[in-house]
């Protein structure tokens, strides 16, 4: 493999890994703080991609406005979802959480099929990012993919800032390490749950929206991302945002390079990585609490 191809694969790995991080960080926080295993999290990614597709005409194809509108909708949607359904689940066991969120997936998928359709769609790359930058003499790398990585990095840095430096972040960390104790110290846990859930939904929707132009929009996209994100969360350790970050990148590299180096077994490379981590550290690399 020559240097340029290697470089391109590295960029692809980072982009894929960072995108996974947006979805997986919400998943891991929702579990860490609310104790809810949310199978419907992949659906939010799917919903995001479909929002990017179906909102675009309303904004005349302006990608940034579409993104902002989608994010506002996502926060409202997440807030309502927590209020109407997820709030039933806090005192229930994992099995019931699995089932209710499984039911939500079926509902979301059918609503998607009723409201949009079952076809595969493409979302155009915004024109001002449609170019490519050249790497070396022959190779080109699309600007849009770099922009995805940049957006994800900004969001990741923002999350780090919120979690590590703000009062809200302090409450999130407290809730993550001990829910009852945080509650008894006067933290409004219901409010915290709603914020975390809405933020998790917004992150997954954002990931879906910015991924739409490169991955295209198709019905099964949520399930695929969900399962890879489970692998990320298992590797990184539940509740750990830092773990999710490193594990996402690790999974991004293993998956991308697996496809390049061993195309026959690429599908299972990520799972073998998970198996190896489980043998070494059954509770993930960065277990919380």
């Amino acid at each position, binding site marked *: 493999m020559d240097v340029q191809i290697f470089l391109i694969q590295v960029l692809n790995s980072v982009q894929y890994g960072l995108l996974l991080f947006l979805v997986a960080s919400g998943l891991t926080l929702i*579990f860490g703080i609310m104790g809810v*295993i949310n*199978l419907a999290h992949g659906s939010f990614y799917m919903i995001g991609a479909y929002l990017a597709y179906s909102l675009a005409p309303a904004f005349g194809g302006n990608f940034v406005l579409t993104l902002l509108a989608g994010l506002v909708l996502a926060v409202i949607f997440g807030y309502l979802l927590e209020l109407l*359904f997820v709030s*039933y689940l806090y005192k*229930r066991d*994992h*099995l*019931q959480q*699995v*089932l*209710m969120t*499984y*039911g*939500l*997936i*079926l*509902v979301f*998928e*059918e*609503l998607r*099929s*009723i409201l949009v359709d079952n076809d595969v769609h493409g979302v155009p790359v915004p024109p001002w990012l449609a170019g490519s930058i050249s790497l070396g003499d022959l190779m080109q790398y699309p600007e849009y993919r770099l922009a995805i990585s940049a957006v994800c990095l900004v969001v990741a840095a923002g999350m780090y800032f919120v979690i590590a430096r703000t009062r809200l972040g302090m409450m999130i960390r407290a809730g993550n390490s001990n829910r009852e104790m945080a509650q008894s110290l006067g933290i409004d846990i219901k409010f915290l749950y709603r914020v975390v859930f809405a933020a998790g939904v917004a992150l997954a929707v954002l990931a879906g929206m910015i991924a739409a132009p490169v991955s295209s929009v198709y019905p099964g996209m949520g*399930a695929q991302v969900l*399962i890879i994100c*489970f*692998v990320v*969360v*298992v590797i990184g350790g*539940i509740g750990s945002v830092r773990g999710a970050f490193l594990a996402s990148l690790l999974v991004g590299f293993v998956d991308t390079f697996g496809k390049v180096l061993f195309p*026959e077994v690429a*599908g*299972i490379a990520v*799972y073998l990585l*998970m*198996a190896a981590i*489980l*043998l070494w550290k*059954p*509770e*993930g690399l960065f277990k919380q609490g």
Partner: protein
Amino acid sequence: MDIRAPRVLIPVLVIALLVVFPLATTGFYLEFTTKVMILAIFALSLELLVGATGLVSLGHAAFYGIAAYATVLLSPKYGAASAFWLLPAAIACSALYALAVGALSLRTKGVYFIMVTLAFAQMAYYVIHDTELGGGTDGIYLNVKPEVALFGWKLVELGKPVVLYYVVLGCLLLVFVFLVVLLRSRFGRALAGIKDNEQRMRAAGFSTFRYKLTAFTLAGALAGLAGFLVAVKDGFVNPEMLSWHESGAVLLMLILGGMGRLSGAVLGAFTFALLQLFFQWDAVFGNFSKHWQLLLGGTIIASVALMPNGLIGLPAQWRAWRARKLAGGADA
């Protein structure tokens, strides 16, 4: 009346009904009931994990699908395989994968376990879906059904729907009785103890990991039996049998029927299949019946929110509600 009477009466009635059912009908309903009984075996195998041991596995469809694929792949292309070696071989494939997955995933607990079992099932799905081995998305056909023959004399004609019906019914009863006996044995008691409090069982000197791994492998093997039967019945396998939708559906059967009781798994399988059939019924739902998953999803959400103990827990829930109401009335 003796309060225990329904507990004997209902199973006897159900079995009698299933035995005489083929006399009353043929065609679609016979095949449907055969399929549902296979699903009931599948649900019972998961009940051993979820209900009896407290291990929520979200990857159980892998074992069902692997045995089904093994049944097709191990059969000769233009001849009948003998069921006497094909069935054990198919079950062994599932059991081996269950042993490997169990050995890894049982190192984790709770929500990790759910995710890890799901991930390993997805791995099996990819292998079958994306490699040459499994014929891709289209699946593969089983050209000739396996035969059950001794010295060239055919004992059972698996190709006939009625015969297959009784074979499946027999398997269902065997699995049910096997699990009843197993759960009453020392092994079953240990599983119940692990479900209740694993720490305590370890302190009492039980090697809980081995018990759980045995239960996991056994559950995989029983799911393999269901997979074998469904491959023989349909004569066709496709990757969707291993998909996580299938794993979710079988968990749903358990919770619909009610956890912690073997009869709940059977009741749940029948309820689930009937619900599915009902929602796909265009005489009632017209054009909307193609969106049956919406109704199914809504039913799941409502049943989790409103019936935490499943259908089999409804009488108890009703009694508790009435008792509360009566107590409330007395206060007022």
